[in-house]
């Protein structure tokens, strides 16, 4: 335990209860604290908080931060807990600040096409709400019905629609942020551009709760796009699938909304898990899912046809078409459940998240196959191939103990991540660093990390905000 931090005393608890209301804290109740000790990064990682607080407004959060800062109590912000990098795990105990009671959609400004929301809004609920006004929120991660918008912003979440619409940072126009000192900052707002000074707004997006606590979010909306169709395209080899991507993009009249990759093993596991079966081809080693948007139903075929034909010319074994919501959902439920399906086989499975220039994906996939041989382990892969962002999911082999595999998996994922860096990539494309990738971040961005640390020290001199994330901080409590 790092001795710079204080534990939460009974007196602290009473002060915190006065700030948020005594019905909005959890203390001394191991069963109810337990869910706040972990996230979706795998069942192997957890650390219990001393107390969970559930504030309802910015003023309370400001007072909480000011108090924790004065008392040097760690403060770990938490959204839905759907993160995959351990970002919401309170490594040093202290306070978990859960945004679950700040879930209001404050305003849908249809004239400016901006949504103003609290961080605890489920992103899917926001999408459904803005659709009622004919609007569309395009920053949509894969964790559709669970993740909070605040978590999406904190991790700069990606998802399947990044190639056309960008990651979360492309949609954030403004933030209200509480600093460690308790000071409340308004960054940006409803304006669509701003070239006045450093963009603290951009700095906050993706900072994983280490620089400030996001209490209000202004999001860019666009008109609801036209109907979509999804192509499920099997290829004999991963190389063929990857080579088809730029050809499919060039053949589309506008950028496809999504180009997703699944290897044959991921598809089979996810089909078994979801019970949804889609047409397959026996010899396929890799599948692409390509989503296109058309101006109207009449032009849908003309929109996906050249894309499908380009795939066939690039060596696709077949092109299957889903152009109604039911058929499309069948395909996407399989893609979304790739990781969940593997958890049935290996409950501790952890997803890698490297990103490389997309031309380097075949090299990466060959490297991963080499890793699978070296470690004698199956590594199903899925991801956002047009972004160069792939998630390898190494599965624990039966001949290894949990402890052996924990070490080997860490080595394996580190080797993959560093290979990505060597090829001009990064160690995380969209899940964030959390604490699981501290070390590889330090290895891959040595100089940048020094500047990042200086910024962290300037904004959070006592290091109370989400300690142990991004930067390693001595021995922590995580199991």
């Amino acid at each position: 335990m790092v001795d710079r931090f204080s534990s939460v005393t009974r007196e602290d608890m009473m002060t915190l209860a006065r700030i948020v209301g005594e019905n909005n804290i959890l203390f001394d109740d191991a069963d109810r604290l337990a869910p706040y000790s972990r996230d979706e990064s795998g069942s192997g990682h957890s650390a219990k908080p001393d107390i969970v607080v559930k504030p309802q407004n910015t003023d309370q959060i400001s007072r909480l931060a000011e108090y924790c800062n004065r008392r040097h109590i760690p403060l770990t912000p938490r959204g839905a807990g759907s993160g995959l990098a351990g970002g919401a795990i309170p490594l040093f105990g202290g306070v978990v600040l859960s945004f679950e009671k700040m879930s209001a959609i404050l305003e849908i400004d249809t004239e400016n096409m901006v949504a103003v929301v609290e961080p605890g809004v489920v992103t899917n609920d926001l999408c459904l709400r803005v659709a009622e006004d004919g609007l569309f929120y395009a920053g949509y991660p894969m964790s559709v019905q669970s993740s909070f918008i605040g978590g999406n912003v904190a991790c700069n979440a990606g998802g399947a629609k990044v190639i056309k619409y960008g990651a979360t940072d492309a949609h954030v126009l403004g933030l209200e942020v509480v600093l460690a000192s308790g000071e409340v900052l308004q960054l940006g707002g409803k304006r669509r551009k701003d070239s006045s000074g450093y963009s603290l707004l951009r700095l906050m997006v993706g900072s994983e709760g280490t620089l400030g606590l996001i209490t209000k979010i202004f999001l860019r909306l666009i008109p609801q796009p036209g109907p979509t169709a999804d192509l499920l395209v099997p290829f004999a080899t991963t190389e063929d699938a990857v080579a088809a991507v730029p050809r499919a993009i060039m053949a589309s009249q506008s950028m496809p909304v999504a180009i997703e990759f699944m290897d044959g093993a991921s598809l089979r596991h996810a089909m078994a898990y979801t019970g949804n079966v889609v047409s397959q081809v026996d010899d396929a080693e890799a599948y692409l899912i390509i989503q296109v948007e058309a101006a109207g139903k009449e032009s849908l075929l003309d929109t996906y046809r050249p894309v499908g034909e380009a795939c066939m010319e690039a060596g696709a074994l077949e092109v299957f078409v889903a152009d109604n919501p039911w058929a499309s959902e069948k395909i996407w439920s399989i893609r979304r459940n790739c990781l969940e399906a593997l958890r049935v086989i290996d409950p501790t499975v952890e997803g890698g998240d490297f990103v490389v220039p997309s031309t380097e994906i075949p090299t990466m996939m060959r490297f991963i196959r080499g890793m699978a041989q070296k470690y004698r382990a199956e590594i199903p892969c899925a991801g956002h191939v047009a972004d160069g962002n792939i998630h390898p999911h190494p599965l624990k082999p039966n001949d290894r103990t949990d402890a052996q595999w924990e070490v080997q998996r860490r080595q394996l994922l580190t080797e993959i991540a560093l290979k990505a860096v060597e090829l001009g990539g990064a160690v995380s494309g969209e899940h964030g660093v959390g604490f699981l990738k501290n070390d590889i971040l330090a290895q891959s961005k040595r100089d940048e990390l020094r500047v990042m640390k200086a910024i962290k020290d300037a904004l959070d001199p006592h290091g109370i905000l989400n300690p142990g994330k991004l930067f390693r901080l001595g021995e922590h409590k995580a199991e």
Partner: protein
Amino acid sequence: MLARIVVLIKQVPTTESVRLNEETGTMIRTGMDSAINPLDLHAVEQAVRIKDNAPDTTHITVLSMGPSQARSAIREALAMGCDEGILLSGREFAGADTWATAYTLVQGLRGLFPFDLVLCGERATDGETGQVGPMVAALCGLPLITYVNRLTWDEGTITACRAIEGGTEIVSCPLPVLACVLRELNEPRLPTLAGKVRAHELDITVLDGEGIGADKSLLGLAGSPTRVVKVIYPSFQRNTQLFLANDEGMEAALDHLETSLRRAP
């Protein structure tokens, strides 16, 4: 010898919030996204599988009654591998109940005679009546096999497994026959790009009441003996009961839960 199969399909809304016209009791379909009724997809798949085994000697016709937008559902079936599409469409068909719908489809089927096998889904997700298939069989004088979860076609005979309470019934039947199928029958394929393009280029025959030689008084709302007296939207509510393992402990909480479940209707 050519095997002739007719698949009856219905276009249904893909939305979960179906609205009804309270005066007529019929569904408001305007502006709704729609697709082939999911159970009908299994009927189409079965027909196409029979054709896969004998492509040169099998002919599949898709028959549907609906507004002109139902063409897209027919095209989906053509894209899956059916040969020909016929849409029965006209104002006179509007507001048809299951009886008038069955009558209309039978009039359409008369033009396709002789056929060997008629397939349809067991029910549609919008009306949920499951009546049209059996009514068509009755009006045509065809043998009927319902709840089919397995089907084989061999030299003029159909052998089908019917899912019945507590088991399976195996039925053999000479052709022609009408079978209403369940989702367990097969996994419908996704159409291929080539299938989609082919379906787009095929003409769909559209016939109105006159085209099928129907008695107008038996069509649409006028020909529907069903009268919807009242439309009620069910309210969705959850009656949550929390059984907490508090002072009495986990065992007591489980006892309360068990008692409550046993009391439930």
